[in-house]
């Protein structure tokens, strides 16, 4: 009886965990697609480019020069509705710093919660998740760190400090996990940090910085032809053969590559999906076997309880009473197994969420309950009932007189 309960809980738990993971992953992926039609970046793996530029989980494929990217930054491009440049490569305590334009926020429908959008160099607006995890407030300052891993040796401690000027409202998208600033700040951090730039001293930085902000108007990105960025997120006005050709021509005629997000994400799903499918089948087999084991244990226990059942008949219980008693027992077993399974899967999801958050910067949750889990409950109860039907018929057919005489 205990074994069938454990088996049942395991099966239900696995299915529910898969459901939770799948739904939340799908949700994240969908939300982060943000209607981006094309990502342009350095040559390399297109999947990597997508993962890096849209999901912020992989490393960049390299940089592209503004000179080459210039046509796509042109606001009057006939096919392009919106282009958002990204400069990646730095982080703060594991959270990525993204040099971009304020139009980045529009992609993810992100709104300012408190403070404002970054305007000047070294001003940052941070996602809600970053703010709560790192306990950052408006006015807080920090040095950025090179790369995406936590390493004290890589901190740009001779560079300018970033200052938090705004915090975004939670969006449920990747924007929650990012630190956003302008592209120039990224360039400047790296200029300062480079060893041949030793003429500056720390005191001067602040002063210089303020000078920058007020005297020199920063040039538009499109004119910084000597500089580099990581990638471009592009929304087309319409998707048609011209946009297809554009992507192909970028891949064939430039040192850049154009990657199509839906295609790459489907590729990813196809690769991961095999394991997921196998797990799902495994879970179904476990549930089936546990249903069988409920059936067997109920059937077995009837033999031990034959006399008790006959006794109940003597005391006035009808056949249908015994039938419903055994059915109820099956359903109760299944319900208990379901409860344990759901409990385990949500605990498991919470543990996974913490693990995934620290490694992927994605927020998952074990406290979200899905509509599908109601179907899972109904399915579980149905299995418990089905497993109990034959034993219940057996019980209701107990021949009182014969059972009492035999014992």
């Amino acid at each position, binding site marked *: 009886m205990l074994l069938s309960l454990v088996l049942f809980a395991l099966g239900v738990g696995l299915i529910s965990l898969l459901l939770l993971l799948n739904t939340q992953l799908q949700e994240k992926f969908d939300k982060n697609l943000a209607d981006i039609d094309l990502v342009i970046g350095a040559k390399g793996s297109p999947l990597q480019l997508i993962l890096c530029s849209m999901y912020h989980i992989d490393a960049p494929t390299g940089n592209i020069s503004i000179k080459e990217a210039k046509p796509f930054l042109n606001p009057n491009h006939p096919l392009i509705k919106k282009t958002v440049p990204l400069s990646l490569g730095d982080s703060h305590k594991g959270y990525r710093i993204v040099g971009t334009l304020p139009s980045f926020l529009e992609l993810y429908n992100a709104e300012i919660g408190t403070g404002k959008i970054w305007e000047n160099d070294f001003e940052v607006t941070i996602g809600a998740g970053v703010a709560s995890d790192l306990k950052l407030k408006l006015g807080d300052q920090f040095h950025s760190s090179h790369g995406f891993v936590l390493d004290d040796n890589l901190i740009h401690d001779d560079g300018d400090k970033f200052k938090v000027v705004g915090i975004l409202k939670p969006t449920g998208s990747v924007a929650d996990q990012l630190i956003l600033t302008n592209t120039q700040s990224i360039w400047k951090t790296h200029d300062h940090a480079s060893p041949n730039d030793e003429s500056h001293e720390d005191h001067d930085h602040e002063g210089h910085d303020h000078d920058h902000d007020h005297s020199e108007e920063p040039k538009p990105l499109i004119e910084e032809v000597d500089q580099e960025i990581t990638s471009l997120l592009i929304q087309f006005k319409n998707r048609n053969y011209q946009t297809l050709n554009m992507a192909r021509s970028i891949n064939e005629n430039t040192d850049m590559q154009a990657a199509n997000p839906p295609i790459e994400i489907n590729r990813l799903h196809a690769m991961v999906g095999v394991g997921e499918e196998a797990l799902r089948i495994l879970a179904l087999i476990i549930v089936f076997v546990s249903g069988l084991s409920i059936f067997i244990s109920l059937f077995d226990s009837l033999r031990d309880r034959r006399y*008790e059942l006959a006794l109940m008949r*003597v005391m*006035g219980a009808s056949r249908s*009473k015994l039938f419903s008693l055994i059915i109820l027992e099956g359903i109760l077993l299944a319900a208990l197994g379901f409860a344990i399974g759901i409990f385990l899967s949500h605990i498991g999801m919470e543990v996974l969420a913490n693990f995934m958050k620290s490694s992927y910067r994605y927020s998952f949750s074990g406290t979200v309950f899905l509509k599908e889990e109601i179907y899972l409950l109904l399915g579980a109860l149905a299995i418990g009932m089905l497993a109990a039907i034959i034993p219940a018929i057996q019980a209701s057919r107990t021949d009182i*007189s014969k059972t*009492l005489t035999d014992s």
Partner: protein
Amino acid sequence: MLKTKNLEFSYNNQNWLKFPDIDCKEGEHWLLIGLSGSGKTTLLHLLGGLRTPKKGDIIIANTNISKLSSSELDHFRGKQIGIVFQKAHFVRSLTVEENLKLAQKLAGQPVSTARINELLERLNVQHKLKAKTDSLSIGEQQRVAIARALVNKPNIILADEPTSALDDKHCDEVLELLETQATQENATLLIVTHDARLKEKFENQITLEDN
């Protein structure tokens, strides 16, 4: 109160057991005596509504139970007939009190702890109220079994070989217990046995001939 007429039963429709007519009045104590194989147990099960007769009628408290439907019979049995088996059996996972409550519930009677306490006190096993039935001595088990047979105030108490496994001393004790309790409840008592020791203790006797 308990009456049978031309009662016949057969397991295979070839060898027929014919039973003598019985007529027990309310509150009377009867002994039904017969050798092994004479159909004693079959008759007890017929009278207790555990089997349906092939021919003839059984009338208990003005109800012809051979005419009742299966579920009517279940209900009638739970309420009107108390059976004490040779070996006491209980629902093992339940306590003494819960077993008695179950008997009330299954018979469709309201659960009355007062009634349960009263019976257990009369039978001197009140202190075992919360005990699991497995932990009772054989004597205590038999007392609880009697309490269970009585709990719904049945009109008829049937006892199947209540004494045959006991020595003389305990035989007298159990017999007295059954008779006192039946008298107190004003129930008709019918003891089915092959135990010859009981012969001289009952005025009303039915003897089953070997078939």
